């Protein structure tokens, strides 16, 4: 056997190994039928959101006062709202905002939380006590009420480079991120605390690996399973929070449609057009349910011992 042969063999070995890791997770995930269903629904929702300008039958912002509060018709499959705007088109465009907010809040919040949690857990000592104290303080702030005051306070602020219609979206993402990183931080801090006392960390230190590199290459990757699970469950939760705030008028401002603010005027019109409540709420419910199922499936697939 030549060296080249060995090299090829080694490469083949490596690829099968890496693939099998992914395959093991995928095989376990696939067994979870509801999780699979959740994944398919999320895939469909994302495609609808991306393709909204192409597949939406009407302009979501077009006002037609003559066609107010219609039930389902051949032109408007899901009817129209109080300004005669097509509900189906608004739902499709709302999916963009709702999913965008859900995904970006989760990604930013998890990143911030992982960063703070890893630093607190790894360095310990006074760094840890300051960060933990800060974490406790953030938890003491009354969540939802605070979000509402913030949303209201910042509602009229204009942000550079963002068009006025979308400034409330950006503000909402920032607010939800700043108030939503505590869970992941606590999770990662705990993981890092136990990881750093293990032998491989000791070995890294003995080899002279820098703290930063140990955190980035060893601590965080080893804590990845619970982070992925909490992020998946988090997307659904964030979409519900966003829609709740927008429903009360404290989140994304009209006319930009989101599933939450589409429900804003439903109660006022409940005698004339009660059906308007159905589809936006169903969209929120289905999305949140899908992410929860997928999170459960991922938890079982990535690490059956995880309890979250």
């Amino acid at each position: 056997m030549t060296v080249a042969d060995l090299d090829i063999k080694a490469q083949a070995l490596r690829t099968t190994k890496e693939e099998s890791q992914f395959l093991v997770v995928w095989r376990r995930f696939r067994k979870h039928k509801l999780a699979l269903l959740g994944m398919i629904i999320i895939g469909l929702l994302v495609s609808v959101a991306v393709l909204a300008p192409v597949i939406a039958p009407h302009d979501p912002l077009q006002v037609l006062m003559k066609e107010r509060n219609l039930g389902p018709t051949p032109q408007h499959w899901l009817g129209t709202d109080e300004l005669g705007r097509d509900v189906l088109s608004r739902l499709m465009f709302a999916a963009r905002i709702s999913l965008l907010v859900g995904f970006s809040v989760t990604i930013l919040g998890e990143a911030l939380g992982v960063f703070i949690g890893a630093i607190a857990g790894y360095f310990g000592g006074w760094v840890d006590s300051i960060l933990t104290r800060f974490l406790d303080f953030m938890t003491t702030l009354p969540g939802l009420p605070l979000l509402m005051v913030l949303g209201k306070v910042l509602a009229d602020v204009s942000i550079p480079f963002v068009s006025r219609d979308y400034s409330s979206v950006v503000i909402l993402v920032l607010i939800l991120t700043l108030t939503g990183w505590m869970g992941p931080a606590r999770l990662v801090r705990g993981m890092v605390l136990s990881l750093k006392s293990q032998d491989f960390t000791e070995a890294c230190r003995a080899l002279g690996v820098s703290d930063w590199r140990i955190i980035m290459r060893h601590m965080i990757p080893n804590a990845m399973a619970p982070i992925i699970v909490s992020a998946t469950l988090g997307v659904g939760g964030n979409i519900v929070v966003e829609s709740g705030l927008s429903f009360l008028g404290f989140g994304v401002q009209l006319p930009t449609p989101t599933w939450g603010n589409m429900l804003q005027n439903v109660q006022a019109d409940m005698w004339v057009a009660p059906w308007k409540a159905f589809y936006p709420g169903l969209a929120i419910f289905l999305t949140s349910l899908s992410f929860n199922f997928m999170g459960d499936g991922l938890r079982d697939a990535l690490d059956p011992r995880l309890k979250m």
Partner: protein
Amino acid sequence: MTRYLIRRSLQAVPALLLVSLCVFLMIELGPMDPLAMYEDNPNVSPEDLLRLEERLGLGQPVHIRYGKWLLNLLRGDWGTSNVTWRPAILEITDRLPNTLYLMTASLVATLALAIPLGIVSALKQYSALDYVATAFALMWRSIPIFWFGLLLIIVFHATLKNPFTGNPLFPGAGMYDIRDKGMPGYNAILDYAHHLALPLTMLTLHSAARYMRFMRSSMLEVIHQDYVRTARAKGLSERWVIYRHALKNAAIPLTTIIALDLPMLFGGALYTETMFSWPGMGRLFLQSAERVDYAVLMAIVMINAALIIFFQLAADVAYAYLDPRIRFS
């Protein structure tokens, strides 16, 4: 133990100061003007506006105003509402009983529903009842509470009619019927219960799902413990094993969860109170936020934060009291 309590209580002081400073600055830095509602009013002259501004101290710099607010608070004065011009604390004490009534009813109903269901679900794991209860809990984990409330109002208030009177089947707003009150034949208990039904359902099903899941997993964990096996092995009756040995231990984590939820009795339910026009704390908070009612807003946030801190401590103490394996360091 005493030292631990004292240390934790002392730690609460800077935390509360920080909360108050944050919220104060947030309201202050925002673009909202508490006097905006008077500016368009033709009956309010510019001189009146200036007088109002002076009375509220709006002309002064932030740190002076915060200092004044804090000093007044230390003297027990929560300030004056700039909407109703009554003391802020009166605004709160007016609404608090209504919220306590709604939230206590919901907590009692939640526990009455969730605890037995969780226990049976755990004891008869994989039975039909367990599947139904778990599916219910999973659904309600994802259903947005405000959407469920909307559906309740639309179905039971706007659509279904009482076949005898032709009125909506359930009232959709308020705590009692203002027209019927004091009329001959008025039954207060029935009227209040009738108005409570929909908001109570909305709140209870949501939290019951959470508590049930919790009770179930807590119970499942306990019944596989060695001491439960020991209790069975020494020949105790199944009833005795479950209620004296398993349930008592499974209920310990539940106590903590309940303690952490208790501040909600004060804070109220934002969505429910708003949708059902319930004159409670949640709605007061929302209205104060909309009308930039400083004093009331600050008072609610501060009392809420203090209660959260207090009940976190209470939960820890309760846990240590119920589970002697836990010791404070």
